[in-house]
């Protein structure tokens, strides 16, 4: 297959794709997962998403107003950040968690660095990491699917970490999203519909998500609990926030490497770190931390993988 996404020196051919078009398309592609989340976890899930969106957009507008910058909330990037943050929250959190999280994502995760395109870390994930370190008790108590009585139940990954039996969660349940988890991460089928749309429109490429998911699957299969090649790779691929993270957060333009080779290294690192955190780390889930750590490594990956300018000696 010809490599159509090569980063090269000029001349460039203009393509009628703008930042705002991409942002709104990604947001649109995330809608099915949100609807599924609202259906699975009930009204609170919808409520949290709306609060998160409003806070994110308002924060961006207020900060741009205060710093005398052009207000750019129409480009959809703040909307997308708010949406992704909400999707990374358990449905049972109190209302102020998405408020603080969205504010942190936009103000500290993005605007402090100079706004869109300048941020080192994925803003939504920075917000989630802040919430996770600040209110671990709220961020790790989940409600079960289709039970609207707010009884806490552990996620499949948390059960695995504590060495408890998984119960009757089948692959099909996990695929459809009938399990405990964050609002937007549970319904794999809805996420895949959105991802297919983005892949089809070529807004994201297939290298990052596939390398990421494949690495997690293979690694967890190889390093199984009962020795070599005994792991349940499919379980690990379907559980936690892997699908959401791989398709919608690791592919963030700003915080992932520029070249295809760099992106593959980036995605491999994400996958490896995710698997390591899940298998041996302190937390049951590691997708968000893996992506954040690889975000930090992105500049150095770029440095070693960028296309050479013709005639210049390699250092």
């Amino acid at each position, binding site marked *: 297959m010809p490599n159509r996404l090569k980063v090269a020196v000029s001349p460039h051919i203009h393509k009628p794709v703008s930042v705002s078009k991409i942002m709104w398309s990604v947001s649109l592609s995330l809608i099915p997962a949100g609807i599924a989340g609202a259906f699975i976890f009930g009204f609170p899930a919808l409520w949290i998403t709306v609060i998160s969106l409003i806070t994110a957009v308002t924060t961006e507008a207020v900060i741009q107003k205060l710093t005398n910058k052009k207000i750019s909330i129409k480009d959809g990037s703040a909307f997308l950040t708010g949406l992704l943050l909400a999707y990374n929250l358990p449905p049972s959190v109190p209302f102020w968690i998405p408020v603080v999280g969205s504010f942190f994502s936009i103000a500290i995760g993005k605007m402090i660095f100079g706004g869109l395109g300048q941020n080192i870390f994925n803003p939504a994930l920075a917000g989630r990491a802040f919430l996770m370190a*600040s209110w*671990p008790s709220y961020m790790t108590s989940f409600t079960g699917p289709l039970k609207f009585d707010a009884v806490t139940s552990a996620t499949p990954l948390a059960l695995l970490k504590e060495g408890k039996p998984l119960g009757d969660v089948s692959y099909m349940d996990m695929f459809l999203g009938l399990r405990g988890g964050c609002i937007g991460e549970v319904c794999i089928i809805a996420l895949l519909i959105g991802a297919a749309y983005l892949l089809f429109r070529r807004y994201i490429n297939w290298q990052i998500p596939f390398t990421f998911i494949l690495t997690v699957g293979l690694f967890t299969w190889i390093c199984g609990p009962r020795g070599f090649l005994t792991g349940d790779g499919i379980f690990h691929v379907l559980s936690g926030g892997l699908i959401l993270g791989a398709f919608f957060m690791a592919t963030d333009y700003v915080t992932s490497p520029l070249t295809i080779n760099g992106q593959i290294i980036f995605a491999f690192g994400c996958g490896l770190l995710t698997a390591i955190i899940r298998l041996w780390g302190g937390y049951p889930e590691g997708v968000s931390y893996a992506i954040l750590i690889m975000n930090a490594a992105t500049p150095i990956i770029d440095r070693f993988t960028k296309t050479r300018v013709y005639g210049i000696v390699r250092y």
Partner: protein
Amino acid sequence: MTEKQQNRCFQEFIKGIIRENPTFVLALGLCPTLAVSTSVSNAIGMGAASTFVLIGSNLIVSLIKKQIPEEIRIPCYIVIIATFVTVVELIMKAYSPALNRALGIYVPLIVVNCIVLGRAEAFASKRTFVHSFMDALGMGIGFTLALMIISIIREFFGFGKIINYPVSYNFHPALVIGMPAGALLVIGLLLGFFNLIKQKK
């Protein structure tokens, strides 16, 4: 002392508080700042201990600066500083064991606090006795004030307390602000804030 000299002394004193604040402008001694700025009482204890060491070491260094050869000045300074730190630690253990316990390892670590060595090297080794004293006092107070500002913010947001009293029973503090990562965040934001004020001026 003439008025001009007095003015000069005052300048040496006041510069450490704002214009050359050790934490926010010189960015020296951040290690204890990250570690002990979790509560206002710790901050004051740490600030007082550091100020004492600063004054002591600055005075001695400025007194014997002519006798110390250039080549071995650093070990000489360190011995002097370490002496004062040990004195502080012994006194603290004898008269305020609770504070000593709260500050823990960071009291002996004042020895390697860059502010103390930095002032001995950059200031006291070149200046007079009186100026060195004023400089140490100013720097010590500047460091204490900086620690207090950071610790007030961290105590409030990280532990939900103001001077060891909880703000409300329903307030859920952001634990991360109380951790070292939160200290970096708070210091970074404060640095940015102070630079912003400076630019506006």
